[in-house]
């Protein structure tokens, strides 16, 4: 028998013709901590969903060998029965139930007749908590009275209660501070000493270097290589190179004939606190400037605070205890509501069009004109229907929304066309400053190209544009300049001639190390 507990061979998984995973191979040794690294959208989570049975056997190609057995999981229960437990980024806890109940959710401790045995539940919960270093916690309190760090550990306790042998952690430290992260990583090392195998997905390379024994790098749905600690070069730079080493092709239309003018949008000393926790600072002393005709990127990892920055600027739609100054066209503006923002010529295209951007049961015209309506398409509160029709028709053609008519319901359009409707909605408010949050997320290459063309057109007409993107090639391909944001602070600023994915990653890592240094 081999010393591998898990072998995933030639895994290929398609979503309606698009290969999310393409011949991926992953071998995990028994008792090790194995890290999986890759950019956003590289296919890490998809791979773990294949392993845990979220995507059932038969919906993918390839073979899973676990403890020498061929596995055909049809759902999560099948994999859990074998001792494979996955802990997702979003915690699967029921906030108002007690710690003990949460530890045994879906795995209730019952007497022979199916009635819950509360004494057993509590005593066994206490036992599980001890294994993750929480022996002093009261198992009877509602779980939402504990911090995120402890909740994350309780997720592990929950897995322990299921007799876990292979534990998968998807970005476990994304929402944790340094101290909590350190504690969690140490618990992982402790589990390792008890013989439990772990797979950890993380963006934080310093953590991977600290905790893992080997790392597999995935890029664009393919395995690039596996590095082993003590054998290969295990430095962050080496891992970054493997993560981003892709050829840049001509996917971005050239922007020509743009005159970059004066600064028309400036943010000074912007501070924002978490909406639910007034002591948790989400953004610290942010200063940014954008010139007319300039496209400025906000690069950073997920959870770095970019969307929070955009939404807090846009009519204080995020956070509390907001302080700082916004200047538009050199004048200080006071933006307290979204309406203030729109009347001050600021627009924000949100990252999640279905949740924050569109009324899916409304038609194209309605969605395009809703934000601009009070300013351009009405008089004394009465809508000028003809103006709306003309404008919606014009924008439908101008940015090439593929639909039968402007009366088509937006929910029936493809993702790319939906995104174009959102873009049109904000172009119609005639903004001077546009913040575009992940403008091409989840849309196909052709639609992406069209969105980039719209960005170029807007820049040409002298707008100031901020592009938030988790895809570094997109920042590099579309922006004139970019700010790198990490943990709510500006980690650095790069001009077009300094752009490279390595530079961006290095700035992020340097900032993280600085943060660690301060913390200790």
């Amino acid at each position: 028998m081999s010393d591998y507990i898990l072998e995933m061979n030639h895994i290929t998984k398609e979503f309606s013709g698009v290969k999310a995973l393409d011949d991926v191979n992953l071998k995990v040794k028994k008792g090790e901590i194995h890290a999986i690294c890759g950019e956003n959208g590289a296919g890490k989570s998809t791979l773990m969903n294949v392993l845990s049975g979220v995507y059932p056997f038969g919906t993918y190609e390839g073979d899973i060998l676990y403890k020498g057995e061929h596995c055909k999981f049809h759902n999560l229960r099948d994999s859990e029965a074998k001792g494979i437990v996955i802990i997702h980024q979003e915690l699967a806890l029921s906030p108002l139930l007690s710690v003990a109940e949460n530890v045994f959710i879906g795995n209730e401790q019952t007497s022979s007749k199916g009635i819950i045995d509360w004494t057993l539940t509590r005593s066994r919960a206490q036992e599980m908590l001890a294994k993750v270093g929480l022996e002093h916690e009261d198992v009877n309190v509602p779980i939402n009275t504990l911090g995120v760090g402890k909740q994350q550990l309780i997720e592990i306790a929950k897995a322990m209660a299921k007799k876990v042998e292979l534990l998968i952690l998807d970005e476990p430290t994304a929402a944790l501070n340094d101290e909590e992260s350190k504690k969690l990583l140490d618990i992982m090392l402790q589990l390792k000493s008890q013989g439990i195998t772990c797979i950890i997905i993380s963006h934080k390379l310093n953590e991977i270097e600290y905790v893992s024994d080997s790392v597999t790098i995935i890029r664009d749905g393919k395995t690039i290589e596996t590095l082993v600690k003590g054998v290969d070069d295990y430095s962050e730079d080496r891992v970054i190179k493997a993560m981003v080493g892709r050829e840049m092709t001509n996917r971005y239309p050239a922007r020509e004939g743009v005159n970059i003018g004066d600064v028309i949008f400036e943010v000074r000393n912007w501070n924002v606190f978490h909406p639910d926790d007034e002591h948790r600072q989400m953004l610290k002393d942010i200063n940014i400037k954008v010139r007319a005709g300039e496209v400025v990127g906000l690069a950073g990892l997920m959870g770095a605070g970019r969307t929070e920055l955009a939404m807090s600027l846009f009519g204080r739609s995020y956070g509390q205890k907001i302080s700082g100054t916004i200047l538009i066209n050199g004048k200080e503006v006071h933006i307290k509501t979204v309406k203030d923002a729109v009347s001050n010529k600021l627009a924000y295209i949100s990252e999640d069009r279905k949740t924050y951007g569109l009324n899916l049961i409304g038609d194209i015209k309605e969605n395009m004109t809703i934000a601009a309506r009070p300013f351009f398409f009405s008089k004394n509160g009465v809508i000028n229907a003809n103006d709306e029709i003309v404008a919606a028709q014009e924008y439908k053609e101008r940015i090439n929304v593929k639909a039968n008519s402007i009366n088509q319901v937006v929910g029936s359009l493809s993702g790319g066309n939906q995104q174009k409707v959102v873009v049109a909605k904000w172009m119609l408010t005639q903004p001077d400053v546009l913040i575009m949050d992940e403008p091409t997320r989840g849309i196909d290459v052709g639609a992406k190209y069209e969105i980039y063309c719209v960005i170029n057109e807007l820049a040409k007409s002298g707008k100031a544009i901020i592009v938030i993107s988790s895809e570094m090639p997109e920042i590099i391909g579309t922006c004139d300049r970019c700010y790198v944001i990490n943990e709510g602070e500006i980690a650095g600023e790069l001009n077009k001639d300094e752009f490279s994915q390595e530079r961006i990653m290095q700035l992020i890592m340097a900032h993280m190390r600085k943060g660690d240094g301060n913390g200790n």
Partner: protein
Amino acid sequence: METKNKKIANMDLKQYGMFLILIGIFILFAITTKGANAKPVNINNLIMQNGYVVILAIGMLLCVLTGNIDLGVGSVVAVTGSVAGIIMIDYKMNMWVAILAALAVGLLTGLFAGFFIAYLSIPPFVVTLATMLMGRGLTYTLLQAQTKGPFNESYNFIGAGFLPSIKVPFMDGTLDIVSIVVAIIASIVLIFSEFKSYATKKKYNFAVNPIWQIALKLVIMLFIIWFFFYKLARNNGLPFVLLIMVILIAVYGFITSKTVAGRQIYALGGNRKAANLSGIDTNKVFFWVYVNMGFLSSIAGIVLAARNGSATPKAGDGFEMDAIASCYIGGAAVAGGAGSIVGAVVGAFIMGILNNGMSLMGFTTDVQKIFKGMVLLLAVTLDVLSKRKKS
């Protein structure tokens, strides 16, 4: 070139289907009651008895558009009616004072509910369940569980009176010329507006329905108008309640389709988060929707008291359910964001025809409730299933 660009749309069956269902149910009862439901006096009753449900359904539609309901309207109807009654009977004051007081009380209840819903974010279901209980209790307390009446004729005119008429002998009775003239004007307006909308669609190169579909729709609409007005002309002319209804339908139809505020209700119901990020103050929208509901409830309360000629503690009992059901039968989406004033009104009339037809057949109100419940469930089930098919 011209023909190539011509786009064909097909009739939205759901929209006109409601009218067909209305006619279908009416014909069904015409058969079972041997024509009793089509008699002029019964058509008149249909309008007078359903006036208040129509008024409530108009306000309720706005609540339903936000994805919520107002359970308190029946109780507000009772409270406002009793306030009007007490002012006229106990304090012997002018009917205009009574009407203004009732409207003010309605607005106050709306402000009360709106404040809790919009600015304290208490779920509308809970807030209006509370106003339902409080309103009913208040009515019994105010009236000391007694009926207050009778009111004078000039007040009762609101609920039971007729507009001026010019009657001429016709067949075995009389015919009101005013009703016929109004029907002619209504027909011209309808044909003209349909023609104009067709021309606008052509001009902007939108999909247009084939001519035969437009013609069919016009024929159905004209048939309904002439049927109603002819029957009313054969009775006593146009009821005053009809005037109130038509004005409210026109005003709220305009608000919901042609004003910024009206469309904001749809945007809120379709996606509240997106509406917020589009600069819509959704709390404000919620607030005014419920204030408006209180206001319309008071109008319904005034009309009901006038029709009954008295204020009773049980007035308006269960009206909230009729109003809510009207909206859903009229095609409004339970989750909010879709629905129309015309739909809600047609829904109210479908409910009214069911009540009226079953009463004529001798069913008790208890049995009527069973059928009304079944019709509501059937209408919404069909609506949901047809949507699922489309997607």
